[in-house]
């Protein structure tokens, strides 16, 4: 891996880290167990490694954002997760924050793009 690829990978992971939590909280407004949650996120284009997602679920539960229960399904005991009351409140707050950041970034990008168009338009005149 080159230095620039390595840097990209680090920055990508950093960028994804916060988004993953939000995506997991969003998905867990409905009940899932680890593997089906992973599949559901992957179907929506968000692939998460097993070794990232499963410990993340534990951590969010420890933080009181998720509630879990063991239940038998298809002859196998599975741990099902869903948002707790605190988790729902936190999700709303985080979603607002994320939307605000997203809007700011979009505004910055579109401003930069229109600035470029202006500049290129002027140069052709």
């Amino acid at each position, binding site marked *: 891996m080159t230095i620039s690829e390595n840097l990209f990978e680090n920055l990508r992971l950093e960028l994804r880290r916060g988004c993953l939590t939000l995506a997991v909280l969003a998905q867990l407004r409905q009940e899932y167990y680890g593997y089906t949650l992973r599949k559901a996120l992957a179907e929506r284009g968000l692939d998460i490694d097993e070794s990232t997602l499963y410990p993340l679920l534990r951590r969010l539960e420890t933080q009181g954002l998720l509630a879990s229960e063991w239940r038998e399904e298809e002859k196998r005991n599975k*741990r099902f997760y869903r948002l707790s009351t605190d988790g729902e409140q936190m999700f709303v707050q985080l979603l607002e924050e994320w939307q605000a950041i997203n809007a700011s970034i979009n505004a910055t990008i579109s401003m930069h793009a229109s600035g470029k168009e202006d500049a290129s338009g002027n140069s052709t005149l």
Partner: protein
Amino acid sequence: MELLHRYLQAVKKHLPWDRQDDIIAELKANLESQLEDKEAELGRPLTKDEMEAWLKQIGPPMQVAGRYLPQRYLIGPAVFPMYWYVLRLACFWCLVIYSIVSVVQIFNGGIANGTELAGAALRVPAVLMTTAAWVTLIFAAIEFGLARNPSKRGLFANAPFDWSPSALPPAETTAGYRKRPRSYAMAVTEAIFGFLFLAWLLLIPAHPWLLLGPGAFYLDASPYQFAPVWVQFYWWVVGINVLQLGWRCVDLVRGSWQGPRRIQQNTIQALGLIPLVMGLTSPGHAYVTLRHTALDQGVYGAHLNALNHGIYMGLLVITVIAVAHLLLEGGRLSLNVYRKRVAAAR
């Protein structure tokens, strides 16, 4: 399935004992479901190679288990800036104290040789590592305490750095420098050479050959000896060097090594006049005396007078040059101050 079982067993070994069964049960259910899906997709069980590739893709057992553990620091980000600051300070002052103690010990022992000096120098890494280990240990204990009392974390991390923006040193401008600002490496090198010079200076009384070379042995065999005025002269020189070295060290610690050292240089030069004047005002301008005055006065008296006169003239010339240089620097400083005042008035 057997490989999966072995994999889960390996993961379990790295998990905390109180949660390992629960975590493994959950991980097992998730991975078995995933495996079933894979096999359903293929319409057959996974081969050994495919199974290995899948488990490898999940990750090494220790790493997978590690993700379930809380983030652990020996020294966390809140405490680290202070730890780093104290570590540098402790190592620096430890080096200073160790150097001075070593030099004084060698000097007092009176039997300093290359082996002793080399031994003292070789002990420096061990001394620094011991200091660093103690500082790290203390801060690790603080971190441990704060992990159990997180409310104190912000308080601890901010309190020692209680600061006010208006108390910050004035902005350094490079525009007025005649030369490039001094680099950190240069400032450290100057401090190290300052220490070496001081060590050399302190060794001179016990080992005059360090200053006079072979002349020290001739002096021993000659009828001449240094007058007591040189002892006072010597200690003044030592004192001025200690002051200069201390000043440089303080600059290093305060992070102000880049700026010009005009005031420092002028102060040291002004203080340097004291031993020179002391020499010039020495009673009878006697810098060298005879060991056996009554015995050798007749033979060496004329040589002695010429020698003392030569030393006196030498000291006089040096003093005149030093005073002229100081006056010149004083004039430059006054001119700069005047220019700044005029510029500020405009």
